[in-house]
């Protein structure tokens, strides 16, 4: 089945699993990134995600293709756009492979690459009504905790 890379609907992990299921594969690894209630000692109401749509979709497809080349895995990635309430999934990944090690590795590869490459941004909506974008340059030691994955 076809799963859109970007969606303003809840992430349905069953859809991602269905997209990568393969009778030749013996393992499916999944990952859901969910929004946390608090980061940097500040409470959130929600996280708002926005994307550079065309390039985000291209980059997510490229990551899936790289995971296939490196691990022999079939990978499906979906990211939420718009407001995501605390506790809901902002990103979902399913990776299937002939064996579990490759499935886990591909899933890990996909989320790690997504977080540094895919043009998607989050804006925190704090409990006190203020907002802040997380789009600053980060060094190896983040200046602030992120409320997402």
């Amino acid at each position, binding site marked *: 089945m076809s799963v859109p890379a970007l969606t303003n609907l809840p992430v349905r992990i069953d859809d991602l699993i269905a997209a990568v299921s393969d009778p030749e594969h013996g393992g499916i690894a999944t990952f859901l990134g969910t929004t946390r209630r608090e980061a940097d000692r500040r409470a959130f109401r929600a996280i708002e995600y926005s994307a550079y749509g065309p390039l985000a979709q*291209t980059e997510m497809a490229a990551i899936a293709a790289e995971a296939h080349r490196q691990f022999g895995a079939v990978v499906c990635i979906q990211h939420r756009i718009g407001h995501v309430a605390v506790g809901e999934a*902002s990103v979902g990944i399913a990776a299937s492979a002939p064996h579990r090690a490759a499935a886990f590795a591909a899933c890990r590869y996909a989320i790690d690459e997504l977080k540094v490459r895919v043009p998607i941004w989050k804006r925190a909506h704090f409990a006190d009504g203020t907002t802040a974008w997380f789009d600053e340059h980060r060094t190896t030691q983040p200046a602030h905790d992120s409320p997402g994955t």
Partner: protein
Amino acid sequence: MRAYDRIVPDPVTVTVLVFASLRDRLGADECVVRAPHGAALNGVWPLLPEQIRRADAPPGVRYAVNDVWAPAETPLANGDRIAIVVPVSGG
């Protein structure tokens, strides 16, 4: 045409897409910029509207041209749709 008219080529006009906090600063998704002939992607920042360029370009900015990643040294072409991609924070 006078001889010296040939010395300075026409400027190019590009559309610049911005995202996240830059979009808030601009108050719009995009703007149109006229750049001198030969300018590159990394020369666009000083040409942006004042409300964006009042701060330095954030470290780690990447660029895209017509929805494809492009090196910062890529020359601008008339009609390009360029994107200034600030550090990402998805996930």
